[in-house]
């Protein structure tokens, strides 16, 4: 899967989402539950605002010294006998991984959930090279078996599916004979995937944080699949976005606490692991360890006005509070990165040509900004995107004409007044019972989903009423 999950236009994608009643119900209840759990976890910790400021400071310090920490990390990985590959582009990254796999003459790859491997289209590259690639995270595995249905949430990728759909996928693809109880479905997947873990030649994971002074990577998980992926195969390839790094275990600890509480409301998830290449005398763990550090557009982001977006620790808390995400669902964003953070970073990584609508998929209510554990000014960045899109002339011809007309109209009191006067007679034939019921675009878009009162006659308007009343009161303002 690439970053782009749907090539259809934005309106079609959102219409699909809004029309999917099950998905909307599932997203709504998931949001409610995750929101509450996050709030409870944050409150029970106490001093949450200070924790956020600390998280922000750690992320910003690391970004400001990113070249230093990346070099320290690379030196330490190599000192421990691992390999480091710096990939400027996604092609370089997935090409290197393919070369490693082929140099081992391996065909069986097991991986744990990682957004950046999706971004670099690694699975396609490996499958094209003749490998079997197994996603071992339960949610990702379900999606893979459903012909690589795209994920719809950063943390809970199969959020949009219900248990019956999952049972049907397992039944048709894996001859599953059981019922739709989540325990039974998970137990079945455990059995199938256990085999895959044991026979895999290569394990591929993402990286929550690289720990620079250790040359090790940190994984934060609940299922245990990430650890098996890194423990059993003889070769472990870890892929990280270049910004996902901390100086030491001490900073990692603060960020892991923020991540677990923000993502799922847990104090710590079941498994938090810091790992590197196998050492002398140890029996398991990788004999060969590769770390692939991916730029793929991140250095441009770092140089520009959106650099704070790189503070992101991928907790998904902004998705869980977003009213727009709630209604259109993750797939409508057309990107593996949905929700508010997706609307910020997808256009940065993929360009405005494909993704200029995403910054408008927001009510600018700012709930995302309030909830972000590392204080990324998300809604302000969405406004910044909109400013860029307008100033680059990327809005549609109709939009531009409308804005131009509105600008003229609103800057001339005379025109404004006469428009108000004409509004009622002009909408007469489009209205019924005091409501506008039909009209050309963009009016049709508006009245398709909400009421629009017909403008009142001039004599009933507020200004007329106010002037009359002022006269009646003898020129005094009430």
């Amino acid at each position, binding site marked *: 899967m690439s970053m782009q999950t749907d090539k259809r236009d934005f309106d079609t994608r959102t219409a699909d989402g809004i029309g999917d009643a099950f998905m909307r119900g599932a997203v709504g209840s998931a949001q409610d539950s995750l929101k509450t759990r996050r709030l409870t976890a944050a409150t029970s910790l106490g001093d949450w605002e200070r924790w956020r400021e600390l998280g922000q400071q750690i992320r910003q310090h690391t970004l400001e010294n990113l070249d230093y920490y990346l070099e320290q990390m690379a030196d330490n990985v190599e000192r421990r006998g691992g390999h480091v590959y710096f990939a400027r582009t996604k092609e370089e990254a997935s090409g290197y991984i393919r070369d490693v796999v082929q140099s081992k003459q391996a065909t069986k790859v097991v991986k744990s959930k990682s957004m950046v491997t999706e971004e670099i289209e690694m699975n396609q590259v490996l499958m094209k090279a003749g490998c079997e690639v197994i996603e071992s995270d339960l949610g990702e595995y379900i999606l893979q078996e459903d012909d690589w249905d795209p994920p719809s949430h950063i943390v809970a990728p199969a959020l949009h599916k219900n248990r019956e759909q999952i049972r049907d996928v397992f039944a048709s693809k894996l001859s599953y004979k059981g019922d739709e109880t989540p325990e039974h479905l998970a137990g079945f997947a455990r059995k199938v995937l256990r085999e895959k873990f044991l026979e895999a030649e290569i394990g591929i994971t993402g990286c929550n944080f690289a720990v620079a*002074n250790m040359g090790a990577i940190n994984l934060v998980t609940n299922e*245990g699949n990430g650890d098996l992926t890194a423990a059993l195969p003889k070769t472990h390839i870890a892929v990280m976005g270049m910004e996902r790094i901390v100086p030491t275990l001490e900073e990692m600890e603060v960020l892991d606490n923020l991540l677990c509480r923000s993502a799922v409301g847990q104090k710590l998830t079941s498994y938090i692991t810091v790992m590197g290449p196998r050492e002398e005398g140890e029996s398991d763990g990788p004999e060969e360890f590769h770390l692939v550090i991916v730029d793929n557009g991140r250095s441009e982001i770092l140089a520009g006005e959106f650099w704070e977006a790189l503070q992101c620790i991928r907790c998904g808390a902004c998705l869980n509070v977003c009213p727009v995400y709630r209604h259109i669902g993750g797939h409508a964003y057309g990107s593996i990165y949905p929700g508010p953070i997706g609307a910020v970073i997808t256009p940065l990584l993929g360009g405005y040509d494909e993704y200029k609508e995403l910054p408008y998929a927001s009510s600018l209510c700012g709930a995302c900004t309030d909830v972000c554990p590392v204080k990324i000014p998300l809604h302000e960045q969405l406004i910044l995107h909109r400013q860029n899109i307008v100033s680059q002339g990327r809005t549609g011809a109709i939009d531009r004409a409308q804005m131009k007309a509105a600008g003229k109209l609103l800057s001339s009191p005379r025109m404004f007044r006469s428009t108000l006067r004409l509004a009622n007679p002009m909408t007469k034939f489009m209205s019924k019972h005091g409501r506008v019921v039909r009209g050309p675009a963009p009016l049709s878009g508006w009245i398709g989903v909400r009421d629009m009162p017909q403008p009142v006659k001039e004599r009933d308007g507020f200004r007329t009423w106010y002037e009359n009343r002022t006269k009646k009161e003898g020129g005094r303002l009430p």
Partner: protein
Amino acid sequence: MNPRTFHEGSSTDTEKRESFLNRVAESLKRPRRTEPVRRPDWKHTVHLDTLADRTPEQLVEILKEQCFFIHTQVIESTPALLQSTLDDLIDGYGGGPLIRSGDPRFTEYGLSFSGDFVWSEQAGRQENIRRAEAANIALVFADYTLAESGTVVLLSRPDQGRALHFLPAHYIAVIERKSIVPRSTQAMTDLNRRIESGEDIGSCINMISGPSNSADIEMQLVVGVHGPLRATYVLI
């Protein structure tokens, strides 16, 4: 063979790394930073302050309460009763096969289990993994214990592999009271101190908080996914 040599048309590793890091420095609009960077004084100490004032007894209570939320049974025992507590527990989990670490504390406390398999360097990769996969129960000693999150911290060593914690169906960790610290902060600070002083702490730090779980199907919690299905801590 080093796979990097396959990479046709790309510059050498060092050049690649240099140009990558130079580009990062350029994005930051300054020259490359190669002198050691000092971490700033962090503006808050919330991580150090949280639960720092609790007594050892209070920490045990916090640990026990948290274990309820992470679906982990806690059994209080004593060094003298430890053998029989563990025997009962192993019976309760349906008996062996049992795999355990080669932690010296098993000997210190005079523990022995008939038919157990001990993870060891001599057994080798394949045999250790095969035995762990076949095991019904894994038995280990915690290196650190985090009260707040109900977490046992274990370091990988020749006698304590990684898969030991994940392949068996049931997981038992023995916790010495003296290993209990308030939260992750103290354990990570101590480990970082050991790393900075040049100590080799092994290739892997496992922080384990109860059995594996997933909420990937309709957000409903399923306890027991890829890792252990059940977990018990024995407190001595």
